[in-house]
């Protein structure tokens, strides 16, 4: 069975954080304890969206040592394929669902002398658990710089400012407040690590600023879960199982492979972990690569594809599955 081990859970609480974000709390249906996890970990939530099976990763935001329940926060994406809409519109307290064991692709470098977190919008969620981990262990020199559109859309900004007034700065787009990046990159001790979670533009801005200022690559960390982008439908031949599948506009290639009854490996389903990497046997057409895993050379080679987020546009595609 592909993916991390599963946990059967019951939704015990759904809270509207603001007009775009809802928070969901899960307990085990068997009454047992949740596995401990590390700050920055995510869980993959399985949804049965009117016959379509969706599996979306969401960062765990509760304290890593609180084993009674897990909480996630989900931003509604009205343009997206529907995972967040399903959670917002259909998931109610009392419902039973399946989530995965925690997986961490964005963990703290525990050697760091200091951690600087940059969050944009809903990108705040992994930092909530990381900050809880650092403050519980009492070894955390950290700063959080959190950019939000407006004060009312700044999920958890007030709580963070209240608990960590010396560590947290919030910047409001509607008041033209900008993260003073150049200034923040100066004067940080050797061994300081940077973590970014937010929109692609923000990630690129911060990473390239740090590189230009001579920061070592190993001190830079980021996480961006890509939602699979919809696109033109296409057909794929699976050489190992001998099946030909049709990938619908609103479906990812991985979802189409699974819908055909093929148990393909996966973990994050967001183009980050590398688990679903698939060999291309033959192709005639263009790849639409959307992942963070393969290198530019691998993308150009046409020999590999990450079916969780990437697509294809052309005459024929044969995969080693």
């Amino acid at each position, binding site marked *: 069975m592909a993916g*991390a081990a599963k946990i059967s859970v019951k939704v015990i609480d759904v809270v509207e954080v603001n007009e775009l974000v809802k928070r969901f709390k899960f307990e085990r249906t068997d009454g047992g304890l949740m596995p401990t996890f590390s700050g920055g970990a995510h869980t993959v939530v399985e949804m049965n969206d009117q016959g379509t099976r969706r599996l979306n990763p969401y960062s765990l935001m509760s304290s890593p040592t609180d084993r009674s329940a897990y909480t996630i926060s989900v931003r509604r994406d009205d343009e997206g394929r529907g995972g967040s809409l399903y959670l917002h519109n259909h998931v109610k307290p009392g419902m039973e669902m399946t989530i995965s064991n925690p997986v961490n692709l964005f963990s703290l470098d525990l050697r760091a002398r200091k951690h600087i977190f940059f969050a944009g919008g809903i990108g705040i969620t992994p930092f909530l658990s990381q900050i809880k981990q650092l403050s519980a262990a009492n070894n955390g020199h950290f700063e959080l710089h959190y950019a939000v559109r407006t004060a009312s859309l700044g999920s958890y900004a007030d709580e963070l400012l209240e608990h960590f007034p010396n560590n947290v700065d919030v910047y409001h787009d509607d008041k033209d407040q900008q993260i003073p990046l150049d200034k923040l990159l100066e004067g940080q001790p050797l061994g300081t690590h940077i973590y970014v979670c937010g929109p692609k533009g923000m990630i690129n801005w911060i990473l390239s600023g740090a590189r230009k200022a001579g920061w070592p690559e190993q001190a830079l960390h980021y996480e961006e879960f890509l939602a699979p982008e919809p696109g033109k439908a296409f057909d794929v031949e699976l050489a190992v199982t001998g099946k030909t599948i049709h990938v619908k506009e609103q479906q990812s290639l991985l979802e189409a492979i699974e819908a055909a009854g093929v148990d393909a490996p996966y973990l994050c389903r967001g183009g980050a972990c590398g688990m679903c990497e698939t060999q291309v046997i033959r192709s005639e057409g263009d790849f639409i690569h959307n992942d963070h895993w393969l290198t530019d050379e691998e993308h150009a080679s046409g020999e590999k594809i990450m079916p969780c987020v990437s697509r294809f546009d052309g005459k024929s595609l044969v995969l080693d599955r």
Partner: protein
Amino acid sequence: MGIEFNKETYRGDYTFTNSPTAIKRFPFPFDKDSYMYAVNMEPHTPVREGSVYYNSFDVDEHYVSEMADRAMVLDEDPLRCQSLPHMELAGWDLLELIMAAKAKDYPDLFKLTCDGDKWHWVNKPLGIDETFTFMDASTLPYGPMEYITRQTQGDFCLLDQREENLWMDAGMITTQADWSLDFDIGMNFFEWHAPVPLAHEKGIFIRALKFLLNIQQGAPARRLNWTMTVNPLLDTSPENYHKWGIQKTTLTPENVGSKQYLRVELQSFFRLPRSNGMVFPIRCYLIKLEDLVTYPKWARRFHRVIRDLPVELATYKGFIDNRPMILDYLAQFDDGAETSPGVWPED
């Protein structure tokens, strides 16, 4: 259950012995008549009750004596157990993993009671009864990794995961096949395996690392490795090589069956929850050739494996000079008959 612990030594007079039960459950590592490196990972899930693969951390008749030997090694050389400062959290992960598993798998030997952070640990075979505060190292006589691995058979590599690699940043290493924690601590997966011949060229370590990085909480894996040791010496360390290396020259055609041991490592791999690190327990099992050949399938197969092993591997594993003598001994048990697939002695 109801394990009777041997009183035996792994040095000096070498009184180590395997009971018939221990021989039968020995983790014979060859599932066919030849050997080459392979990633050969499988899920670390229970297989055949009574086998060494049945529990997360196997406890056997050698437990008490093996822990006494470890204590002696550490008295002589405290550098065999080291932890870089950022690895303490992983040490607590390991302590929790082992205590919970042993209390569940061997309730007559170990007991763990947790009341919030107040933990009570009872280890009956070693006569330990400890109350401590979880995550507060000042309430234990040693750091968490050292504390629990002084009570658990096998070596332990505690690894940090970063930069798409695994880093050996802590460990308890006293039963090793000739590598030094003190030298290798801080190295990444490729660096600490650097001296291994042939496997890098075959891409074994690239594939193995990729597999290991994807091991998730609650889904451990395992594999076997092996080498040869003269005398039941657990501590074949590079540190003491100038003392034990000479023992290799004491083999004679008369004593090879009783002095030459097959040494098998049951390596397992667990994701650690709080630190997102990993632990590689490396459990060493020893069996002398005389005991091994009591199972005809093992005797035939082992003869063929040793005979056909590439020179580089026999050299790396340190028995190239003694190979002819070992083969002469094993040949008498190999009538050329076919062997059945798999590792089990009586299948």
